[in-house]
């Protein structure tokens, strides 16, 4: 895998290095890094109580220890890459890079997923290769292109050598440092990062003026013509905007020939035994990354499939998709609007949508309304940037495919049906609930 990296990419990367190094201390003390209040509009209290594992209850001391570890560069081989290097609170707990940079300026193959609301994920990472927040810790810590520790034992030895940590682990867990406890502490801190309270949550709570008319039209398209709701599922008890499943939407079909790549992956996994560390290495550091969920399940229906991400705070977690390949929300919607990129494993729900320009604008307005208050300013800035860019630069736009004038299949051209129905002037989101 040797993609030509565009110049702007390198510039962003360089800027990110500078920012991380100068702000590392400031990040930990930023209010955005603090555990979040549960008093947020739309906070799913019942759901939250169910997803806290009984064998790792939340305590303030454990959360504080987890926070210290989360922001500690010493968890990496070269003492320069902490968790927040790629999951920075100011950037919605991402790095806002297409794919993340680890030790010695090495880039992985995946876009950093946000920690915000990760507590609710049924599995972690883009391909769900770790079942819990605890189980995912070893991945980045020992991955050679991320934090680069040789083993979890090395990480334990390093933390043990720091007297303050020894005492803290003794206080919280009643014994000396173990990797399982490092995992528990970091997971406990991550479980405090819940983000709701958005204008949309207030709108659903009954404040009809909380979002704009454009966002209301967008919500209607989200549930209807845009078909977004079928994967980015939302309801009041699970207000997460994800079905927690894995779908091939054709993102890596741009650059991967899936079948030979899948065969290669099976060979590699058969030789190496396919343990979690091996899968982690393939996912982050090889051209097989684009196979997604397949690396975990080895089932053909999971080829090129990635987890449905939540849509909350999208305007501070750009760029989009597992490889960070889309710069703006308009590009992302354009990808869906044209029916994704055709490949044999494309999910059945990915069809041309026939969204007009105005409808795309409304959808973005709706997505912007999913921003939590602490990110309102940053999101506004990003919205303006993306809006401006979207007026001139639309690499994914394919109006003929989106409107169904161009068909798929051998030798087939011409109009197809099954485009989303036209929106009626009566918008269900504006009609009220009775």
């Amino acid at each position: 895998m040797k993609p030509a990296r565009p110049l702007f990419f390198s510039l962003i990367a360089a800027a990110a290095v500078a920012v991380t190094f100068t702000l590392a201390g400031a990040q930990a003390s930023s209010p955005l890094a603090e555990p979040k209040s549960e008093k947020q509009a739309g906070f799913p209290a019942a759901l939250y109580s169910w997803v806290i594992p009984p064998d790792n209850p939340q305590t303030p001391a454990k959360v504080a220890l987890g926070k210290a570890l989360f922001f500690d560069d010493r968890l990496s081989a070269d003492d320069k890459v902490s968790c927040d290097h790629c999951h920075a609170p100011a950037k919605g707990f991402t790095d806002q890079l297409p794919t993340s940079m680890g030790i010695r300026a090495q880039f992985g193959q995946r876009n950093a997923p946000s920690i915000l609301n990760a507590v609710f994920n049924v599995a972690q990472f883009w391909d769900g290769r770790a079942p819990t927040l605890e189980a995912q810790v070893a991945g980045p810590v020992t991955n050679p292109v991320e934090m680069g520790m040789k083993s979890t034992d090395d990480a334990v030895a390093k933390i043990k050598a720091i007297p303050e940590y020894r005492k803290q682990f003794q206080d919280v867990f009643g014994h000396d440092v173990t990797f399982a406890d490092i995992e528990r502490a970091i997971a406990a801190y991550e479980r405090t990062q819940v983000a709701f309270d958005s204008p949309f949550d207030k709108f659903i709570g009954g404040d009809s003026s909380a979002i704009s008319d454009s966002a209301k039209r967008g919500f209607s398209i989200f549930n209807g013509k845009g078909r977004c709701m079928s994967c980015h599922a939302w309801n009041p008890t699970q207000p997460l905007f994800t079905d927690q499943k894995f779908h091939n939407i054709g993102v890596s079909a741009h650059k991967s020939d899936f079948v030979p790549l899948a065969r290669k992956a099976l060979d590699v996994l058969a030789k190496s035994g396919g343990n979690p560390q091996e899968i982690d290495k393939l996912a982050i550091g090889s051209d097989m990354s684009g196979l997604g969920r397949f690396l975990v399940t080895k089932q053909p229906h999971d080829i090129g499939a990635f987890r449905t991400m939540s849509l909350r705070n999208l305007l501070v977690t750009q760029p989009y998709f597992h490889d960070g390949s889309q710069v703006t929300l308009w590009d992302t919607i354009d990808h869906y609007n044209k029916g994704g990129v055709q490949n044999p494993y494309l999910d059945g729900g990915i069809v041309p949508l026939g969204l007009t320009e105005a409808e795309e604008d409304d959808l973005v307005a709706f997505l912007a309304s999913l921003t939590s208050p602490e990110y309102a300013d940053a999101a506004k800035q990003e919205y303006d940037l993306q809006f401006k860019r979207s007026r001139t630069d639309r690499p994914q736009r394919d109006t003929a495919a989106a409107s169904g004038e161009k068909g798929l299949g051998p030798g087939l051209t011409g109009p197809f049906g099954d485009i989303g129905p036209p929106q009626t002037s009566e918008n269900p989101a504006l009609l009220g609930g009775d």
Partner: protein
Amino acid sequence: MAARHKSVETKYMEDRDAVLRGLRSLDRRTFLKVLAATTGAVMAKSLMPPHSFQLVEVANAAPDKTASTAGMAGQPPFTFAYVSDTHLYQRTLNQRFVRAAVKAVEDVNALDPQPDFVLFGGDLAQLGRREELDLGRQILAEVKAPVKMMVGEHDWFYDLGGAWQEMFGPPNYSFDWKGVHVVVLMSVHEKDFWTPRNMTPEQRMHTVAGLDNGVQSRFEVGDDERKWLAADLAKVPHTTPLLVFSHSPLYKYYRNWNFWTDDAEQVQAILKPFQQVTVIHGHTHQMLYNQIGNISFYGMLSTAWPWPYAPSGLPPLTVQMNRADPFDQFDGLGDGRINVRADGLADKIYSLWDRNPVTVKADYLVSHGKTARPPAPQFASY
């Protein structure tokens, strides 16, 4: 009548109650046993998935231990694939089914090694129009392996097979393949209900395409074709494995939906003298298998939509697939492969597009469920 035909909903609620009652009565030890069994099944499933593009499973299946005990061996094992029930509309009307058909073709083309041939299981078209059949012909032209065509009622009843036969030849035929005698039947003849009613071709087609109507007759192979079949098989030694393709199941499953062949018993009687008989049928769009006497039956998956199981008549050997996810267009759909073993029996792999593949071994059917039971799905089948 009312007591015999329970609604799908009623059946579902009864099954659910039974399961819940069962769970309540489990003691701790039994519960742990159930848990261990299900965990084991899951592990076994994920360890050896029969990949569509890696025929490890086929290589393993070939030298099956049952080969020596079945009393008959000799022909080389082989694999063929199938695509079935694409139900294509004209391309101006519907893209979904076109995409699904294209996907199936890409799927069988990705098989390595390639299957000996690809059977098309019938219902290429939805309303029997020439344009629909022609679209299907174009899509199937992309299949790399040789294609064997079978006709379904959706292909036939607009012009009584005119366009279909022009494109694909006679609807029933036979051939020999690596020591196996293969018969393709046209099993969806109906008695003339249209002439007395002065129906247009379109009305006739729409009537046949409907469910739960008393106007059309039941499917049948018919007198003439049964005679043809008997004559065709007269030349074949009874020790030769038989592979029979029919669009409708060659047994009686559910009459109201024409999941049914009216002269099934007579056809079965013709097949009875043979030692190994496998019938592969389309039409039912679900995982479905059955054993009647010496005959093993496997239903094929559709690429267009999955049918729910009928309210009654389901063969007891069938382990039901669970309900398709309504948000997932490809769930419950797929294509598949059949491994014809050295002993003349056939294992079936259901290559479900959005689920893990399921292998049904002939041993399960011929033992009447005593061995090799396929894994049950996690959820209820409703």
